[in-house]
Structure formats: structure tokens, C-alpha cells
């Protein structure tokens, strides 16, 4: 294809957007509505995912060591824990450190625990992290059987429930997004089919004067691309503005310690690029699918 021809295709596709004004509007709106919904889903999904990752990474096994264990036995225990498959990291935390942590975590009321600094009732702890959060329970059960283990703590019950809930949330979100995209493709394909139907005369004449199918397809391909990208602009702008404000308000006024929103940058840039790509994809798919029918000899 020559540069002239490519320029012509670009020019024609843009002109055609203007000529088919209302159809352009209808197709782009279909993309807009879909991407707005998909975008909202993505924002929610990515944040849930982010939250889930954070929670999963925070999950750790606290192995309380028997008070009677001496340093040699403690070392032996450490080696045994490290030998368990999928253990990523074992960190030692003495009972003094544990007390400090406790005092800190209680905030203002923590000072009353300072009394215990004289005679610390806590035990030394190994903090164990699993390579994959899902293995936490299995590893904890194994550690429980080791000698000089007084108690194993990993948020029994809660962790399992949380993992299950997150799994369901992710899958439901994914299915909804896929369904939405699928619907959008048909919506757009049908709208573009109408614009092409209105232009079957143009296609007929092109074929009559010897245009190849590839040549005929190009402007439609580009038109679909523009439609999709045009349709993506509004959702991107709207989502960015809303998310920016929600993020500001949340960080400054609400800000719960266990839940943080993904920061605006780079998350919103990535999401915008993703929406633009999806818009372009469904636009192209829609137009290519609809023009095919008119190219059968």
C-alpha cells in the first residue's frame, strides 16, 4: 500500500465519521456506555485485587516457642521450619520485641502494658511467611507438630473465609466483565452494520471499478478504530475525574488502616490505556465483522 493510499484511507475514514454523524454518535455511545460500566468494574476489581494481595501478604504464621527452649533448641526448630516446603521466610522476634509491638499496636491505651516490661509474660516468636498465601494453613498445621512449639497462630478460621470470599469476588467480577464486553461487541457490530448498510452503494461502486477487498476494508477498519477510541474518551475522562476525587477524599478523611485505594498514578493511566485498547478492539472487531458480509462475491 502506498503512502497516498494510506492517507486516503485515513482521510476517508474520518470524513465518513462526519458524514454518518448520527450513526457515529450511536456507535460511539454504545462503546461509551459499555466502557463506562466495564471501567467501573475494573476499578472495583483492581482495588479488591489490590486489597486481597495486601491481605494475603500480611498473612503470617506466628509460632510461639516454649519458654523452656534454650537457644540450641530454638535454632533446631528454626531449621525444621525452614525445611518445610513453600516456607518463604522465617524471622525471629524476641519476647521483648513482641511486647513493644503489642504496646505500639494498642496505641494510646498501650502504655498500660508498660507494666509488663519488668516481667514479660510473652514468649519468643518465629514469624513465618509462606511463599504462596494459600499454603499458610498447611504449613501452620505442620509446624504445630514440631517440638518446642507452644502455640501456632495464623488467624485460624478468618484467613480461610477471607481467601474464599476474595476468590468468589474475583471470579464474579471477571465473568461480569467478560459478559459486558461480549454484549458490547454485538451492540457495536450491529450499529456499524447499519452504517455499512447505508453505504452498500459505495461498496458496490468500489467493487465495480476494481477495488480489492482489502482496499475496501481499510477505511471501515479505521472507522471502527476511531469509533472505539472516540467512545473510550468519555469513560476515561469521567472515571479519572471521579476516581481522583474519591481517592483524595478517602485518603484525607476516611482512610481505614486495613484498606487502601490504589494510588491514582499509575493505576488510572494503566486503566485508561486498557479502556482505550478495549474500545479500539471492539470497534475494529465490530466493523470488520459487519463489512465481511458485503464483500462476498
Amino acid at each position, binding site marked *: *500500500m*502506498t503512502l*497516498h*493510499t494510506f492517507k*486516503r484511507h485515513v482521510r476517508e475514514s474520518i470524513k465518513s465519521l462526519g*458524514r454518518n454523524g448520527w450513526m457515529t454518535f450511536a456507535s460511539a455511545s454504545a462503546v461509551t456506555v459499555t466502557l463506562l460500566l466495564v471501567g467501573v468494574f475494573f476499578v472495583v476489581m483492581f482495588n479488591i485485587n489490590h486489597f486481597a494481595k495486601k491481605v494475603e501478604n500480611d498473612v503470617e504464621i506466628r509460632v510461639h516457642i516454649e519458654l523452656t527452649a534454650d537457644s540450641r533448641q530454638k535454632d533446631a526448630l528454626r531449621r525444621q521450619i525452614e525445611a518445610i516446603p513453600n516456607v518463604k521466610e522465617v524471622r525471629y522476634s524476641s519476647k521483648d520485641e513482641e511486647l513493644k509491638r503489642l504496646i505500639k499496636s494498642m496505641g494510646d491505651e498501650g502504655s498500660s502494658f508498660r507494666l509488663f516490661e519488668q516481667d514479660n509474660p510473652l514468649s519468643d516468636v518465629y514469624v513465618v511467611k509462606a511463599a504462596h498465601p494459600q499454603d499458610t494453613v498447611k504449613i501452620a498445621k505442620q509446624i504445630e507438630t514440631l517440638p518446642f512449639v507452644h502455640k501456632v497462630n495464623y488467624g485460624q478460621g478468618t484467613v480461610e473465609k477471607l481467601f474464599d470470599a476474595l476468590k468468589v469476588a474475583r471470579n464474579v467480577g471477571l465473568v461480569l466483565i467478560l459478559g459486558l464486553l461480549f454484549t458490547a461487541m454485538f451492540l457495536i457490530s450491529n450499529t456499524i452494520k447499519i452504517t455499512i448498510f447505508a453505504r452498500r*452503494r*459505495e461498496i*458496490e*461502486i*468500489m*467493487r*465495480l*471499478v*476494481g*477495488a*480489492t*477487498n482489502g*482496499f*475496501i476494508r481499510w477505511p471501515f477498519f479505521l472507522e471502527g478504530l476511531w469509533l472505539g477510541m472516540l467512545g473510550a474518551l468519555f469513560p476515561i475522562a469521567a472515571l479519572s475525574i471521579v476516581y481522583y476525587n474519591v481517592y483524595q477524599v478517602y485518603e484525607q478523611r476516611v482512610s481505614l488502616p486495613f484498606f487502601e485505594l490504589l494510588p491514582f498514578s499509575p493505576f488510572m493511566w494503566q486503566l485508561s490505556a486498557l479502556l482505550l485498547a478495549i474500545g479500539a478492539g471492539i470497534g475494529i472487531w465490530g466493523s470488520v465483522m459487519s463489512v465481511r458480509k458485503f464483500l462476498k*462475491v
Partner: protein
Amino acid sequence: MIEMQDVYKTYPNGVVALNGINVRIKQGEFVYVVGPSGAGKSTFIKMMYREEKPTSGTIMVNGVNLAKLKDSKVPLLRRHIGVVFQDFKLLPKLNVYENVAFALEVIEESPKAIRKKVMEVLDLVGLKHKIRSYPNELSGGEQQRVSIARSIVNSPKIVIADEPTGNLDPETSWGIVELFEKINDRGTTIVMATHNKEIVNATRRRVIAIENGKIVRDEAKGEYGYDASYV
């Protein structure tokens, strides 16, 4: 050159449109195709630019057998054949210049060559002064001239016209036929289906009459008429 041998065409709905056609049209001839509506005239014409494929038989156009031509090669064939229709088939949103240039743009000519050729043919059809007009601003005759200009702009060897004067008044029709004669004088083969008796009788060209899917008369310097009315 166009040559058909034992061409049969049955449409999927069972209608037999062509029932054994044998014909030879030499380069540079001017041929009228006449016959009643539904006799197979349009199918006969459509075969020549591969709008329809024959059910059996061979059709040679410029040395290529259209019966065996692959779909992907059809565009290349069309670049050597100009086609003109009763309803002009112009694009309403393009002006005269753009409508003619369209035929060259789709075959990827350079803009410079396009300008030169388009101005040449618009001069030939006498519409150089209306290049910026849109089809709805032109009379029927002028629109048909634009359509003819488009059909000859890439210098085809053959121009096929399917009732080009069907929508025009007698005077205007004469202008169109004179234009076709002018094109024929430059060595282009013209195949024209028509119902216009006066023109056929006055110009005395070869006449092929088709009825019930068969050629019932093929006469050099013939008159209008087919079996039923030609006594």
C-alpha cells in the same frame, strides 16, 4: 475481445436465465443488446464483468476465462472493463471530480496522474465546467456523462452499458449515444443493452437480440426488434 461458448445460467431459485449462448464480439465493435425484460439480457451483460458466474460454459474476456476466474482476481478484471448503469450509480456525497477520481483512487493511482486523467475524461464528456457540482445539482444526462467518464477514466478496452438511456428523455439519450460513439471511435469495444428503438434503428450497428435465454438474432447493421415484434 469477448467470446462466449455454450454459456448456461440457472439461478439458485431455478430460473433459467441463459440457455446456451454462443457469441463473439471483436475488439472495437459497437454492439446493441436488445430483448424483452426478463429475457436474460441483464444476465448476459453481467456475465461479461463477472457479476454473475455461468453455470456452465466458457466466457473469454481479454484472454481470461471468467468462468474459472478466482474471486480475488475479479478486481483486476474490472479495471479493464468500464460499466455504466441506468441509475448512474454515482456517490451523492462526492462532487463530479471526486466521483470520477474515485475509480482511480481505488486502484491506487498517484494523485498527479489522477488529476490529469480525470480532467481529460471530463473534457471528453463535456463537463469540465461542472467539476465542483454534486450529482443532485446535475440533470440526468449530465449525471450519466459523469458515470461514463468514470467508466472510461482508466482506459478500459471494453465499456459495458446496461440501459444507459433508460432514465433519460430522447434528446438527452442521443447525446449519450453520441458520446459512446466517440468512445468507440478511439477503439474501445462498446456493449450496450437498450430498449431505445429509434437509436438502434438510426445508428445501424450490430444488434444481438436475446429472448428466453437464447440469441434469436445477431445482425450487423441491424434494426431494433426481437422475435415477437420483429416480423
